[in-house]
């Protein structure tokens, strides 16, 4: 029974990794670079939510409405932050310095943003973890002997709905097709009228939304935020993305859940110290046996925007 409980916990934790892994996948498959700002966005959402809830700021709300309002503000902060990053790294570099296929530039500048923001927050709040004044942890239900915390269950559902919505959007809307066209062949897409300067911010907005939601939900579910909270989640989400297969949304979903399960089961059998070894070990084994990941294809490469 304890094992089943750990599996359920793994799924819940995995849904956080899934959200962040999907954000990584969007940027890497459409813009062909690893967006290192993603862990920061996750952290910004968590810290802003915490700050607002702690100081009781959101619009003078109190009681049960205060923390959802704080979470929403955290997610919005993450979206704004992501758009800021787009404007001053990706777009600036791409339009000023010509060769857009040089994806080392956005990668390094996003890494710069990560470190600057992380340390700015550290200067203001210190590097200690802060307790998030969320809903009390006894909001728990029991399904067949398994304890499920209701906020976690709600988060899990929100995440899955968001990803289904994203997949639907990519498939059935004009913007979704435009994004896929830019991802596959920016040149042909541009000729048909897709405008990079209009559609690239959409990628960053979605990234901000996913990370913002993940960061806010993480803050509620695990009750703790810190300026470094993005690093561990970010690296595990990258592991999940690679296990699932670069460029595949469903791969990111599967990979994120696998990493969550591996983490919880490792804690169950071997203790918390073994988690990193197990997660990265699983990644290396996957890469050895199936270099393209579980659901990946080989289309990730050169010639992107």
């Amino acid at each position, binding site marked *: 029974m304890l094992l089943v409980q750990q599996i359920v916990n793994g799924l819940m934790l995995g849904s956080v990794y899934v959200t962040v892994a999907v954000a990584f996948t969007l940027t890497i498959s459409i813009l062909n670079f690893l967006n290192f700002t993603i862990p920061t966005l996750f952290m910004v959402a968590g810290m802003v939510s915490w700050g607002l809830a702690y100081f009781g700021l959101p619009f003078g709300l109190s009681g049960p409405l205060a923390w959802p309002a704080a979470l929403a503000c955290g997610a919005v902060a993450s979206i704004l932050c992501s758009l800021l990053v787009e404007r001053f790294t990706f777009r600036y570099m791409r339009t000023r310095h010509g060769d857009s296929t040089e994806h080392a530039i956005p990668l390094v500048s996003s890494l710069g943003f990560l470190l600057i923001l992380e340390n700015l927050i550290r200067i203001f709040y210190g590097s200690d973890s802060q307790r998030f004044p969320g809903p009390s942890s006894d909001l728990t239900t029991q399904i067949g002997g398994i304890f499920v915390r209701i906020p976690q269950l709600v988060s899990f559902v929100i995440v899955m709905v968001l990803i289904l919505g994203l997949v639907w959007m990519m498939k059935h809307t004009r913007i979704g*097709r435009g994004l*896929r066209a830019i991802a596959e062949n920016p040149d*042909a897409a541009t000729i048909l*009228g897709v405008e990079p300067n209009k559609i690239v911010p959409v990628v960053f907005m979605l990234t901000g939304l996913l990370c913002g939601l993940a960061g806010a939900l993480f803050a509620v579910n695990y009750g703790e935020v810190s300026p470094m909270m993005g690093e561990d989640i970010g690296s595990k989400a990258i592991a999940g993305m690679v296990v699932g297969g670069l460029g595949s949304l469903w791969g990111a979903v599967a990979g994120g859940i696998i990493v969550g399960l591996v983490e919880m089961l490792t804690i169950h059998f071997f203790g918390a110290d073994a988690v990193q070894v197990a997660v990265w070990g699983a990644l290396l084994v996957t890469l050895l046996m199936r270099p393209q990941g579980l659901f990946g294809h080989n289309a990730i490469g050169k010639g992107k925007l």
Partner: protein
Amino acid sequence: MLLEVKDLEVTYGRTKAVQGVSFGVERGEVVTVLGANGAGKTSLLRALQGARKPQGGQIIFDGEDMTALSPAARVAKGMALVPEGRQIFVSMTVEENLLMGGYMRRDDGVHGDLAAIYERFPNLGERRHMKATVLSGGEQQMLALGRALISKPRLIMLDEPSLGLSPLFVEKLFDLIRELNSDGISILLVEQNTHMALEVAARGIVLELGREMLSGPAAELAANPSLAEAYLGAA
């Protein structure tokens, strides 16, 4: 005059791909641009569609100066480029490829136009929900043309559409070009297949190293001995 090109100059790094080319396409006319590899034909078309910024000159479409406009704006005004090598989106279905052609359209006539495309190209209709990779080279060329047609263009620019097609499909392609032209669409045709191009076009211009070498009515060009020696003999 539907399209007017004045003193167009396009540079790639230090290479001057197009150097002061001027010509025009009348409404309802087929004009062909001929020339050897590296003569600047593709650079010319890319500049016309806005994918490449010209270093000098002017592009006027339907009386409006397009030179500073984005490719998106040019598509919306009625210019469509079928690029070299077709550039089909292989990760998309046939229908999604066609819908990409309608990216700039805001009206709700797109679905009716899809049906018309499927009627014209039954092979595409049968495979509308399959990945575009299942199509043969010739069918992919039809898809690229269909994708351009969905944007409701008044001018279609074709970059070497017959490249890599079987002789049977080349025939079909040129029939189709005539058909589209008789529907009132003006066509700017870049071709290596000089014989066929001069047959379908009213006028032609020949580029050499980015400059205009010859131009005139297609029949005159076809009879021109220097052109025959340079291109027709080889074709």
